[in-house]
């Protein structure tokens, strides 16, 4: 997957959990939870959704690495998404 494809995938999963989000307004360098009204359950569900969509196992201890959109891209790329 290209970086753009990964980004689109994360935003699409985010859109299912928090449909009120405008993907174009997300700053990829800022933590998602600072920009989108996500509680801890939403964030957990996002991690589960990304795992299901990509097949990549994401251990809970790695969650902080996926806090930003750029972080998601870096992490999923390193895990060969």
């Amino acid at each position, binding site marked *: 997957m290209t970086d753009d494809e990964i980004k689109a995938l994360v935003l699409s999963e985010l859109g299912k959990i*928090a449909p*009120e989000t405008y993907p174009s307004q997300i700053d990829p360098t800022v933590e998602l939870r*600072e920009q989108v*009204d996500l*509680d801890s*359950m939403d964030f*957990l*569900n996002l991690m589960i959704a990304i795992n299901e969509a990509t097949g990549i196992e994401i*251990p809970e*201890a790695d969650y902080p690495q996926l806090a930003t959109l750029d972080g998601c891209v870096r992490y999923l790329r390193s895990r060969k998404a």
Partner: protein
Amino acid sequence: MRWEPITKPRQIRNVAPNMPDYAKAYAEFSWDKARAQLDGLPGRRGLNIAHEAIDRHAAGARRGHLALRWLGRHGEVRDFSYADLHLLTNRFANVLRKLGVGKGERVFLLAGRIPELYVSAIGAIKNGSVFCPLFSAFGPEPIRQRIGIGDGRVLVTTVALYKRKVAELRASLPSLRHVLLIGSEQQIREIPDAHDFGQLMNEADSRFEIAPTDPEDLALLHFTSGTTGTPKGAMHVHQAVVAHHMTGYYALDFHPDDVFWCTADPGWITGTSYGIIAPLTHGITSIIDESDFDAERWYGILQDQKVTVWYTAPTAVRMMMKVGTEVIAKYDLSRLRFIASVGEPLNPEAVVWGQKAFGLPIHDNWWQTETGGIMIANYASMDIRPGSMGRPLPGIEAAIVRQKAGAVEVVTDSGVEGELALKPGWPSMFRGYLHEEARYRKCFAGGWYLTGDLARCDADGYFWFVGRADDVIKSSGHLIGPFEVESILLEHPAVAEAGVIGKPDEVAGEVVKAFVSLKSSFSPDEQLRRDLLGFTRKRLGAAVAPKEIDFVANVPKTRSGKIMRRLLKARELGLPEGDVSTLEGA
């Protein structure tokens, strides 16, 4: 499965528990003696929470002691001694006084865990005003309702939260006279009809004398939810501090050198009673973390801040369990002495996991917004029966009761389920629901306060939680009223009927799930489902809005029109539907 009791050593980390003998402490306790642990306002002018929390320490040997250490999201650290907090809260009390905000008037706070929140809380109480926190993850609707019901006179919030959630509501909040914004001068200047918090603080005098305060004067307003109707504002008075202090001593085992960390947000009562007040009345150090849950960040805080007493919540414990114990081994948590949890019952697996992960069991305790402070607890000195909420605090009489033909009878047989009830009279008991006398009176019968929780009591006096007596949803330790969520769903043009339940969830306890039937011109599809989800999230905020929405042909109701949430829940879980004789169309 039966869980073996966890026995305790006489001392943990060379510290003897404050209550070595539960039975003796319970028998010898009196509220007068508990009250004598506090100073009261100088010159016998009454009792004020702010004086007990800050001023008495600032005037004594603890003045230079670290009161609050704030840890910012991006690694910032700000320290506040008791002397610092004394001056800052004096300033805020003067800010209110200058604005003409008086005794009993409600000062609302809408902010994340930032230092200004803590200063404003105590400063407002110092001024004789009433502190009312709003959870920062609330959407505009819960905010509007609460400020409206609470006749909020002042709102302190950040520029970002104001723009996102409050600006659009301003016209619908006639009681609100002053909005104080935290942010840059530049940002605030652009917002009409708002004050600059920082500027007002800078201009304010740092000397302030607390006016005479009756122990029964209103100090705190905390909103909670019932099954039906609007949120209820539980009123608490200044002498609640006697219970905050006492429970800090017995249930959380505060010792003078403790570093305490309560992970709860002040938007909920735990984050106020124990995230602000109790550690300060004991003159100890309290840690505040601005960030949300992150297992490794949390272990780092426990280690680096040398936390000795830690008060957290089952949802967090269960998330830590998912991360596993291997990570914990990297951290030196040898200072940690006592771990407690509240918000919803802590499952036995989690209690025992604590023992494996930290070498310390997790002490569950029980209380609610209405009780103001911890009522039933597992203590440092007492064996733990995993899954039990423990035994009543000294000064608290608890019982299992049953209502029969309008009368209340105490269930004396052990192990028999009934409603958990408390004998009224403790200092932090709520004094009413604001403007809702009838709802308040309904909480009492036969000389008992009825908690709405179902429980049983074993032969040795340990209480065990069974479930809620009503349809209130408990998600991540927060109460959510199904009616509040249903009302918002009904505002959507496509929705004909809505029923909302708590769906069991292994991490959050319950998550909010909505069932909606649509008006005939709308058809159920994924786009509409998302539209509804986004609609409710925007109005209610992530903490209250449903996580799941299902379409149904119709929402089951009784012939008198009451939504049968129990039936929705039974169907969701594939359980027997029970008595459906009152079902409409049955």
